């Protein structure tokens, strides 16, 4: 079985990955909708910026986060005046996970919104449904599979995140030492192989479980959708 330190690392990873989706989802939905439905100046620049975390080496992203959100960073110093501090705190690992998984979430959600039949939205509007109602009863339900797929991708990305996290919040046992970081540490120890094997199995199990969960939800929502049609 897992040692106390190992299960703590697993718990931190799960906490950080799940929370990062909760934090990122509202923003990703809003941005996905804007990118899918609106035309505005600077749209392609925004898209390019959005994809940066996918392109840059994660350690660079982590270093950029440190420069921005560190206690001496541009944003970090300002947040510090409100007593909010990300550096060397587990919430900083959430920030890193959000940034790293955000592009995957937005790309997937946007594709879903793109695929919604606009005539259905128009019909709802002609029947007097406001923008919120249209979004919640037409657009979102019809693109639920893409949203779900985005969440699973984002979870996987956040759960496996290593480079940005260790550059930004370091490895503090019980605070920011995630499963990925624990695995990396064991890989760097002569004789770390036994613990390493255990943790790799745990990571595999979590990954497979997430995929199965997504497939199950996808099938259920498909069945529900068929019943409604």
């Amino acid at each position: 079985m897992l040692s106390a330190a190992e299960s703590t690392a697993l718990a931190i990873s799960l906490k950080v990955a799940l929370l990062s989706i909760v934090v990122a989802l509202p923003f990703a939905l809003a941005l996905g909708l804007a990118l899918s439905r609106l035309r505005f100046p600077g749209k392609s620049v925004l898209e390019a910026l959005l994809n940066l975390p996918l392109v840059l080496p994660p350690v660079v992203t982590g270093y950029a986060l440190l420069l921005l959100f560190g206690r001496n960073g541009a944003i970090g110093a300002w947040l510090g005046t409100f007593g909010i501090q990300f550096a060397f705190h587990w919430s900083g690992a959430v920030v890193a996970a959000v940034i790293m998984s955000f592009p995957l979430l937005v790309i997937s959600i946007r594709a879903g919104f793109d695929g919604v039949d606009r005539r259905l939205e128009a019909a709802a509007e002609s029947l007097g449904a406001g923008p919120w109602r249209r979004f919640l009863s037409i657009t979102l339900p019809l693109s639920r599979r893409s949203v779900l797929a985005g969440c699973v991708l984002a979870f996987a990305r956040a759960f496996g995140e290593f480079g940005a996290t260790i550059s930004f919040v370091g490895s503090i046992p019980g605070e920011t030492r995630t499963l990925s970081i624990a695995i990396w540490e064991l890989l760097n120890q002569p004789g770390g192989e036994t613990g390493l094997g255990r943790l790799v199995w745990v990571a595999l199990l979590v990954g497979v479980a997430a995929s199965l969960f997504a497939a199950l939800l996808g099938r259920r929502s498909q069945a529900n959708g068929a019943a409604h049609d």
Partner: protein
Amino acid sequence: MLLFRLIGPLLLLLAAVVPARAGGLLVFAASSMKPALDEIVALPETKAIAGITISYGASSALARQIEAGAPADVFISADLEWMDWLQQRDHIAAATRFVLARNELVLVAPAASKLEFTLDAKTDLRGALGDSRLALAEPGSVPAGKYAKASFEKLGLWPQVETRYVATENVRAALALATRGEAPLAAVYRSDAVSEPGVRVVAAFPASSHPPISYPAAALKDRDSAATKQWLALLQGPEARTILRRWGFRDAASD
């Protein structure tokens, strides 16, 4: 199938763009040696022996790559443990092994910091840290972190540090935290502090408080050609020693 018809030309193309390494030596060396080794490799004496390519990385990663069959000729490790690990697995030419240099462990602070103290059992690290953390390389696995932890334990300071440190991926990242002022103190090698104007050495860890910090070098098994041996001899010569000293390393024989 189209795919199969493409494979042949693709392989040929690959062979053309990825030339086999021509004649020179491939050296696997710990990242912390980079500034000094780059200079030694640029010496005309080195160039007379062979073209040398150096792959820098964490000693642990390099050792595991060598065990997996990486075609390196020389390994320079940042600690004895990984060299021993390879030797036990019979991957190095034991007769060629020697200690290339030693290093010192120091506490650095951001250049603007006013901190002033010596490291001994009575040092108030908590006070020096305030509400922030001490940066050190991961103490469970990265050599610089292991030495720092051993030293803090020996001095009886570990209880002060244990809940107040932030571990980094390597010693350079710990240095960067001090340079950026994110951490008021960082435990790094003297050689790292020498090459970073953004930090100031506050105190040296007493050499007796941790195992000696040695950089062993050796040719790998069946790779101890004449050229390899010649270059290893050059590494121990006066010119290489001067360069190593300039970058903050100490002579192997110094303690």
